């Protein structure tokens, strides 16, 4: 067993209530911070492509500033070949001006995702295949404040294939096809001020490239950015939480270190999860305000993934340590269960690296563009899903066994001697407390998740809602798991109450013999005894 006498058992009801209340208020604070102060986590900007005529002398087509291109409208197609596909460059110069001023991207906006949307008009004579393979010749450039208008630098260029699934729901002339979105690029850092995207849709009769694309009228680019305000709140929250968690971790380890025995498995796990949480809390995002860090997205995903893995492992080991029938003290005893977590994480890591890792080299890359890539990605995700299911089965089975044991011990409790009874009661109490807290946190996470999705998905136009559920979800849930770990570290750290041992008043010799099987030190037994005295007073 993890050793009797954690703070949770020795805390009076009143103190526990106050602590939980304070943490609860912190939690509410996090939700309010997200919901009221922070803006929505991300915004979209929808940009309509300008159709530039390609100019041989200028590698870049842009629509604002000196040297801007000549535009052309695609509303009507003519019967003459006056243009070829290679002459038309779909140009997006972002950000677009607003409020009468030229905007530029700020590094606070962190990252950028670009999604294309095609407006293709339906005509009875021309039918488009579903699952049309679109070939895009794309180029991404950037420019900074102070650069000349034509001084665009190449960021990435690539020829990409994308699946475009267009359906004509009503077959009426003049209607647009309902086309699927086409993911274009993902930038892990928004280091520069202006970006320019040039897209050509070349046609090659022999190779069969882009043959059968119908009456393409417009191309839209949806740009998704993190909001600077959200980043601001996020970084500041992390900067506040980080030292608090590190402090409580040091306090915890100091207490464990002062014990006369070696740290038990649960204490080690708490330390590990605390360290991982601190890594997650470390506001490394602030560095991206000064340095170009395109790998920031991967880093964030990795940190979060490792944290989830640690949390899942912790629950498993916690349940295992409270089985109350055997003495498992090594992490190796749980290898079967933990391998489920491990395999799941490795699968997700492989997926992450094949998608976002490749995007470091080529921001236009997506694993979903090709069929093999899609299958591979699905395989990774399925593997992760399977191991997730395995994990749940393991965990549920373990919790079920713990509850079985609890009911067995319960019936035997009155017949037991005092100290032994208290030991088991303490164990049951600890377990139930964690179960309750975990279920509560998971439930709140779920509710917030659904709320965030619904509030965003159900576009509430014309209602100037003051609450951002999306931010409330992200910041609130982030704060909640911090508070959860924080509470665990405090409540499950070894109690030093009545540290100088008192007389073992109630212990009979038979109990001592029974207890000798347990890896508990006399001092801890005495703390149990102290607990028994205290509960007698209460």
């Amino acid at each position, binding site marked *: 067993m993890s050793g009797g006498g954690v703070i949770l058992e020795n805390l009076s009801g009143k103190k526990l209530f106050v602590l939980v209340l304070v943490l609860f208020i912190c939690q509410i604070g996090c939700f309010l911070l997200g919901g*009221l*102060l*922070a*803006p*929505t*986590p*991300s*915004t979209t*900007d*929808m*940009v309509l492509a300008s159709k530039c005529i390609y100019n041989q002398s200028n590698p870049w087509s842009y*629509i*604002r500033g000196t040297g801007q291109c000549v*535009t*052309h*409208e*695609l*509303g009507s*197609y003519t*019967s003459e*070949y*006056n243009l*070829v*596909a290679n002459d*038309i460059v779909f140009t997006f110069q972002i950000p677009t001006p*607003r*409020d*009468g001023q030229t905007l530029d991207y700020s590094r*606070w906006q962190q990252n950028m*995702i670009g999604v294309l949307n095609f407006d293709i008009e339906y*005509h009875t*004579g*021309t039918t488009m295949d579903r699952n049309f393979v679109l070939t895009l010749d794309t180029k991404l450039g950037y420019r900074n404040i102070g650069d000349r208008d034509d001084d665009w630098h190449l960021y990435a260029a690539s020829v990409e294939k994308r699946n475009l699934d267009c359906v004509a729901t009503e077959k009426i002339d003049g*209607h647009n096809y309902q086309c699927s*979105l086409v993911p274009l690029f993902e930038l892990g850092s928004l280091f520069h001020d202006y970006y320019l995207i040039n897209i050509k849709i070349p046609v090659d009769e022999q190779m069969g490239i882009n043959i059968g*694309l119908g*009456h393409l009228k417009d191309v839209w680019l949806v740009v*998704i950015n993190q909001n*600077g*305000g959200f980043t601001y709140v996020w970084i500041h929250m992390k900067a506040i939480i980080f030292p608090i968690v590190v402090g409580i971790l040091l306090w915890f380890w100091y207490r464990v270190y002062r014990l006369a025995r070696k740290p038990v498995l649960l204490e080690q796990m708490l330390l590990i999860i605390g360290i991982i949480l601190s890594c997650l809390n470390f506001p490394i995002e602030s560095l991206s305000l000064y340095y170009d860090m395109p790998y920031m997205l991967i880093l964030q995903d990795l940190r979060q993934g490792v944290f*989830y893995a640690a949390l*899942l492992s912790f*629950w498993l080991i916690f349940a295992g340590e409270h089985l109350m029938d055997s003495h498992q003290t090594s992490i190796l005893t749980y290898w079967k269960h933990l391998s489920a977590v491990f395999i799941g994480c490795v699968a*997700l890591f492989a997926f992450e690296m094949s*998608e976002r890792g490749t995007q470091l080299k080529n921001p236009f890359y997506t694993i979903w563009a090709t069929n093999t890539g899609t299958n591979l990605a699905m395989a990774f995700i399925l593997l*992760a*899903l399977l191991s*997730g299911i395995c994990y749940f089965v393991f965990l549920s089975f373990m919790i079920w066994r713990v509850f079985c044991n609890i009911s067995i011990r319960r019936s035997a409790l009155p017949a037991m001697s005092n100290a032994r009874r208290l030991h088991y009661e303490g164990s049951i109490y600890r377990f139930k407390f964690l179960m309750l807290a975990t279920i509560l*946190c*998971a439930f709140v*996470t779920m509710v917030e*998740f659904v709320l*965030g*999705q619904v509030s965003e*998905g159900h576009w*509430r136009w*014309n209602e100037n809602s*003051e609450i*951002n559920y*999306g931010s409330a979800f992200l910041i609130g849930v982030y704060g909640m798991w911090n508070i959860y770990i924080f509470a665990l570290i405090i409540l499950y750290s070894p109690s030093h109450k009545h540290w100088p041992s008192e007389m073992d008043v109630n212990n009979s010799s038979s109990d001592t013999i029974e207890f000798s099987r347990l890896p508990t030190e006399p001092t801890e037994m005495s703390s149990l005894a102290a607990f028994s005295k205290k509960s007698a007073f209460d």
Partner: protein
Amino acid sequence: MHINFAVFICVLLCYVNGVRAGHASSLKSHYNKESPSYAQQIPWTPPEQAGVGGTAGEGTGVAGGGPMGMGDPLLLSPSSPSTPTLATDPPPKCSEVSGLSVGQAKLCLLYEEHLSSIRYGIQSGLAECRSQFLHRRWNCSMTAENIGSPFLGPDLQTSSREAAFVQAIKAAGVAHAMARACRDGRLNTCSCSRSGRPKDLRRDWVWGGCGDNMEYGYKFTKVFLDVKEKDKRWKKGSPEQGRSLMNLHNNEAGRRAVLKKSRVTCKCHGVSGSCSLITCWQQLPSIRELGEYLKEKYEGAIEVRATKRGRLQIRDPRFSLPTASDLVYIDDSPNYCIKNATAGSIGTHGRECNRTSHGTDGCSLLCCGRGYNTQRLVTREKCECKFHWCCFVQCKTCIRNAEVHTCK
């Protein structure tokens, strides 16, 4: 039990679907709340420059017929792109535009760069009207008396169902064009959101991004088109005031059509691309979809009358109250069979009809029982057109040897 489970599921769902099509916004009815007093949402400068713009009132500048013309509507087929392009026409200037009300003239000076989008919107709305009503007795034609102002397009003088439709489709066209113009960076003034930004901290755009362009299009259209009706002070309960209220209502219906028909599209971009983070936006509908939607509203338009207290009231209490997206009309429509200048009817004389059809384009209905002439004509026309990227249409030439029926 915990987040990762949700994440797993969502990764799957979101990647399979990619996009989640959402639902149109539900907007509350404003029917009775919409009293003639409106709060201005876009500020304007003090009226020092008033009077520079066009003169108030309708009916000015008839000569020439305006760019949208009333020519022969039969020349316009629904598939032929009849809307003018923004690129070809020179941008209009406030001083050249006539037919604006006093309030509109003030707005015009402030937002001169919006003019070409407004013109484009009105003309594409009218073109859509013509294509929607191509096979009806009233084919969105206007007589010279109804031409209104060349810039803001014609208005039917009779407060009929058709007048309601024209009003609504023009408003929808403008709102649509404004939203579009915001999105290709043609307009500078489309605004950013200011919600929730702490004062003096950072620029709006960096803090919370920019608001939706559709919202800007809606608001600007509301101010610009509605101010015309509000500039005139009619006696309460007079037919003019009734028409004014009707126009306001139908303007709103037209603008809301843009919102109603817009599609919400979402993308997941959370941890590892999971759906823990989701962002949605609105996709603009095509003008054809707006036309069809408003045509449905036209069929179900509700007849109202102006009360003495200056409100609109349903004429038949058995019908339910019109919502803000329903069309309302005051007068019954003429039958559009014979030329009637004041009612805005050019008659169906000389219209081509379909002998075999029993619908509205059939000869019996279209010709109002007057019979039709039949001619045998050999025509060459384009057929079996194929559209190719990039930019050309390949058509066959069909020689049609057919009987053409025209109404007497």
